[in-house]
């Protein structure tokens, strides 16, 4: 076993304990089929079961082969991973291109003391070429690797390892810099009362899908007849006795309760022990998770901005989520997967204060923080466009439903419901307009959009590479434009939607001084 790694150029293998994990993972994945096999017995089945068992066996063998074929090494200049059975492939990442290091341990990994390391670089993020994954190393080695790669010196390793295991007692939220004894400052930590935002994250919907998928696989692959299971039968009998409105109410109630409970549970599991710390070496460090632990390290120099997202439900309870806009990390996908998370769903005020702590320029000018500064509205033309677009889509749906009802015999309640929802569309359009806004404040370009998922993004103007200005036929008629600031960070491009063309140009010219000047002309225009 290897517990100390040195910067040598010898090729090393992943932890041999992975040989235990691979078979286990495959068996868990195939659990419904195997469970069904146990329940139904081999007599009723036939060939299908044999095939699924053979498939599992093959996957296990392939997974174990991966351990034999994967090696990695760290030279003073590069991190290299060699892998592949038939086509050998060497992925090389220059060490000075390493922007983020992500260490994840699933439950099984943790039982065996392992961790998966993902190294993010700035380039080719879209094509996943610059991404380097080591699944898995021993936890100590992973922590060591992270420190070494980002801090460029193996000091402070002990402090970081301690942070990864998240001690329960520590200083309160956001102490002033320099007051903690270690080389790290805590910027935020999970507070128990934040769990109240759990039900509003809707992450439980995924759980519902997973459970439904599991049951359906159990039924189809395991040949389990649900109709014959006693409790299911009884529930169904009770349910069928209800009247239609009661049936609908029951389904909705059960779903709401289930999703809320699952979401809350998911919230606790994903964000329990959440901690955001700043290290003296210039990195931000996020650790979180109760069962699956995840530790992400972001180089502060590469932090180009933040995104405050407020999905409708979360907005209703004055909550918000904060994520980083940085090179080397994929844009946040959902609440749990995103490695760029800076603060889980929490009170909006906390998101704002963490954003202020994290953004280097914002803390210098607290009154004009890019996450709280007033935004310029996009004017009546943009408002009209929100309404025409919302009603355009709604009218299309309505027309399609009417046509289907008239010719294909669709029940009439479909288009009646669609027609009844017309006022809701107006609300949505109005809210979408209310969300639209932009600003240029203390060196950040700020843009906000969306209603069901409202986002406000602040990107450092220095991080803006260029501009795309898009005008569709309808936008040209309304003298509007969609301005996209291209950047190497986060989603690669952030849009200011349906802004007046002149204002878009003014914004772009102010954001990147001098870039647009040769192409600008002053036009006397009466509009």
């Amino acid at each position: 076993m290897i517990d100390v790694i040195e910067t040598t150029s010898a090729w090393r293998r992943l932890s041999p304990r992975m040989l235990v994990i691979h078979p286990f993972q495959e068996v868990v994945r195939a659990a419904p089929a195997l469970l069904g096999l146990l329940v139904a017995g081999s007599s009723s089945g036939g060939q299908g079961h044999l095939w699924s068992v053979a498939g599992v066996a093959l996957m296990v063998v392939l997974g174990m082969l991966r351990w034999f074929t994967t090696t990695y090494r760290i030279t003073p200049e590069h991190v290299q991973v060699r892998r592949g059975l038939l086509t050998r492939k060497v992925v090389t990442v220059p060490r000075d291109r390493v922007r983020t290091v992500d260490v994840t341990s699933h439950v099984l990994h943790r039982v065996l003391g392992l961790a998966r390391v993902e190294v993010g670089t700035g380039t080719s993020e879209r094509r996943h070429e610059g991404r380097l994954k080591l699944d898995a190393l021993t936890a100590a080695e992973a922590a060591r690797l992270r420190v070494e790669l980002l801090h460029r010196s193996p000091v402070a390793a002990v402090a970081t390892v301690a942070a990864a295991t998240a001690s329960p007692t520590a200083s309160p939220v956001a102490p002033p810099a320099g007051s903690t004894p270690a080389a790290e400052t805590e910027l935020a930590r999970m507070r128990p009362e934040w769990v109240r935002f759990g039900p509003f994250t809707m992450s439980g919907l995924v759980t519902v899908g997973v459970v439904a998928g599991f049951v359906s696989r159990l039924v189809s692959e395991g040949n389990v007849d649900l109709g014959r299971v006693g409790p299911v039968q009884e529930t169904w009998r009770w349910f069928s006795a209800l009247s239609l409105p009661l049936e609908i109410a029951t389904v909705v109630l059960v779903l709401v309760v289930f999703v809320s409970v699952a979401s809350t549970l998911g919230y606790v599991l994903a964000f329990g022990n959440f901690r955001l710390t700043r290290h003296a070496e210039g990195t931000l460090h996020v650790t979180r998770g109760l069962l699956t632990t995840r530790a992400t390290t972001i180089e502060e120099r590469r932090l180009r901005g933040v995104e405050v997202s407020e999905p409708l439900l979360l907005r209703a309870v004055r909550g918000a989520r904060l994520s980083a806009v940085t090179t080397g990390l994929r844009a946040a996908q959902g609440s749990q997967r995103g490695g760029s998370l800076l603060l889980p769903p929490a009170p909006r005020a906390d998101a704002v204060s963490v954003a202020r702590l994290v953004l280097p320029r914002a803390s210098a000018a607290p009154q004009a923080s890019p996450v709280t500064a007033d935004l310029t509205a996009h004017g009546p033309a943009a408002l009209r466009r929100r309404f025409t677009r919302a009603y355009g889509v709604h009218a299309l749906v309505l027309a399609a439903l009417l046509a289907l009802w008239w010719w294909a015999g669709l029940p009439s309640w479909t288009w009646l419901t669609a027609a009844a929802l017309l006022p809701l569309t107006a609300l949505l359009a109005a809210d979408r307009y209310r969300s639209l806004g932009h600003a240029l404040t203390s060196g950040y370009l700020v843009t906000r959009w969306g209603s069901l998922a409202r986002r406000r993004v602040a990107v450092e103007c220095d991080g803006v590479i260029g501009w795309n200005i898009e005008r569709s036929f309808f936008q040209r008629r309304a003298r509007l434009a969609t301005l996209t600031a291209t950047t190497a960070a986060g989603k690669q491009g952030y849009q200011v939607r349906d802004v007046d063309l002149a204002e878009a140009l003014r914004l772009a010219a102010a954001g990147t001084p001098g870039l647009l000047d040769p192409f600008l002309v002053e036009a006397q225009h009466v509009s």
Partner: protein
Amino acid sequence: MDTPSLRPPQHRVSRTAVWYWAARAALGWLVLLAAQVVWLVADRDGSALPVTVHVAGLVVTAVVAVAHVTVMPQWRYRVHRWEATSGAVFTQSGWFKQEWRIAPVSRIQTVDSERGPLEQIFRLANVTVTTASAAGPIKVSGLDRDTAQRLVAELTATAQATAGDAT
């Protein structure tokens, strides 16, 4: 009140590009027409569709094809423009959805020039300028070969002269 607006980029693409675009569009339409003819021949007895429907389909396709092949290249030629100064690359493209793209030369990462088989026949080339952002590649297609080469040389020279990794 003075309102700033963008002037179009200075250079048009090569006049030959009109023929190139027309040829490329025509090739696509020819494939479709050929497929229809094959179907017509295979379905001579009219078992699947009456012959008149086949012929009507052919005529409609041909009319749309001719309209597209004659109008599109001219339209495109009028819209597609580009300009490279010492500081920035600036392009204009699109017809229904028009787009301007501006990227500073100092942030350029790669400059690629590509010539497809059809472009070679017309002695044309396209140039793609990429930055560190996946949202911002700038493509100029339909340049004549010398201009493309000159543009690539110019941009690479300036891009090399700037320090940093352009993120």
